[in-house]
């Protein structure tokens, strides 16, 4: 279990780093909460004019907001800081050191930065999900909760795979600093159920930039909207995308070291 030991060391080191910027963390948390208040207000405004949005009630949208916050926390904990580090390491050449360490380079690139204090946001999003479900008065089967968690994880893995592919493109196109803008541009779409969107945007957020896989779909599982075969298809998608991502990464690293030319 060397990976677990490594991750715990990474967490320790990153905790050290964020302690150097304590007040930053407090300010960020307060800002997040303020923005959350704004999001809740806009939901309130929407639902003061209607009882359902695309077949979803207010409580369910609050739960969806919680799931989106979960995804955003995952992005803010791992994806954004590690992208910054990765791009910098490509620019200044210190990525060489990553390759020369006796640990899988994709693992190092994923976990070397962890914004530890974001854990606080996890609590907030969990609260939102629970409150949202309660407002709706839904009775949720324990099995659905279990499936919900698995689907949220597998949806996040799909986003993670996409991220790996995007940053691996840097090995081919050296000037690719804006490699993740596309991810940032689309996370906002997770705020509302994908069923509200016109078909082309639904296709994009489900298959191209699969934000909906990590937001709308897990909540649908919570509502019991998904059939068993659909659930397994989504697990399959995340498994396949992980394999594709690790292969793209492998080829990219080879390309970086000139193995293919």
């Amino acid at each position, binding site marked *: 279990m*060397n990976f677990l030991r490594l991750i715990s060391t990474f967490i*320790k*080191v990153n905790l050290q780093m964020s302690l*150097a*910027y304590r007040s930053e963390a407090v300010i960020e948390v307060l800002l997040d909460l303020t923005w959350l208040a704004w999001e809740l207000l806009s939901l309130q405004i929407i639902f003061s004019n209607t009882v359902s949005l695309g077949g979803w009630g207010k409580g369910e949208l609050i739960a969806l907001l919680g799931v989106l916050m979960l995804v955003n926390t995952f992005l803010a904990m791992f994806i954004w800081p590690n992208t910054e580090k990765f791009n910098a390491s490509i620019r200044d050449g210190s990525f*060489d050191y990553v390759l*020369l*360490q006796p640990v899988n380079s994709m693992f190092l690139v994923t976990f070397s930065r962890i914004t530890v204090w974001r854990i606080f946001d996890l609590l907030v999003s969990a609260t939102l999900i629970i409150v949202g479900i309660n407002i709706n008065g839904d009775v949720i089967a324990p099995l659905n909760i279990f499936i919900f968690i698995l689907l949220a994880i597998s949806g996040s893995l799909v986003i993670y795979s996409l991220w790996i592919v995007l940053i691996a493109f840097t090995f081919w196109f050296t000037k690719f600093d804006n490699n993740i803008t596309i991810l940032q541009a689309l996370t906002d779409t997770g705020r509302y159920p994908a069923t509200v969107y016109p078909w082309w945007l639904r296709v994009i957020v489900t298959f191209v930039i699969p934000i909906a896989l990590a937001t709308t779909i897990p909540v649908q599982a919570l509502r019991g909207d998904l059939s068993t075969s659909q659930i397994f298809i989504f697990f399959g998608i995340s498994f396949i995308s992980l394999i594709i991502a690790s292969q793209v990464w492998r080829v990219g690293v080879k390309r970086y*070291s*000139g193995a293919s030319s």
Partner: protein
Amino acid sequence: MPSNSIVVENLSKTYQVPEREAGFSAAVQSFFKRKYKDIKAVHQVGFNIAQGEVVGFLGPNGAGKTTTLKMLSGLLHPTGGNATVLGFTPWQLKPEYLRAMTLVMGQRNRLAWDIPAADSFLLNQAIYRIPDDEYKQTFKELDDLLELAPLMKKPVRNLSLGERMKCEIAAGLLHRPKVLFLDEPTIGLDITGQVRIREFLREYNKRTGATILLTSHYMADVTALCERIIIIHQGSLKYDGGINDLSRKIAPFKLIGVRLADADSHDLSGYGTEVQNEEDADKRYIQVRAEDVTRVTSRMLADLPIHDITIADPPIEDVIEQAFNQ
């Protein structure tokens, strides 16, 4: 003769660089049919290095030093030839190999900027799976040689360049590598800093018997540490042998720098070859054979309105350029 830790045979690296002329029509043409130019960064280089040897790897900028080091450490695939280090093929990047060697590049940082070096060291301990007792032992040894302890608690960004380099090198040595590739380990350091690193490397080599291959800009690094040097120029091996033989062959020059009253009005061509030197714009430099230094200097002091005069070894790059370009 101890066994060879590094064996290099006909190692070559050719880059294909897309060639494009300026102008719009050329851009359109190159879109459809790309022309490539082959750049031979390293061309059929071969040498062996025995275990425990310290070898200086020299050559002007762009000669192929760093490319060779990158191939030997495993970062780059060669386009031809072969190399084994400690019996491994480097570019397979086997974890066992990576745990047995280290690459330290003077211009790149491996330590995290915002935290004390001690934390980055702990990270390396985990990455290289160094047992606690062994880690403590190694750290103690490195601390003896480099006096690291007072630096460990400060964030890396607050260290001076010399202090940081000490930590960088130590971070690269925590896993007790048997082979060290050092690319410009003293670059940018002041004289005392350079001397410290040099002494450390000599002592480290003596204590651990590690093999060291290092490149440097500073002749003094090499003369202090290496009995053998390898010179590479324009991608090809030019010299492989003892340092004393080399200095007899190529370093019989000295650089005389003078600061003159009304600097530009004197003709120095009668004393030696005048050369450009960017380090000190106020001074003019001439290059003379080592055995002529005393004679030329006294003549200049007698003839010219000299404010200041210095005598130094010419930069290593110039020497090599001169010796092998002819």
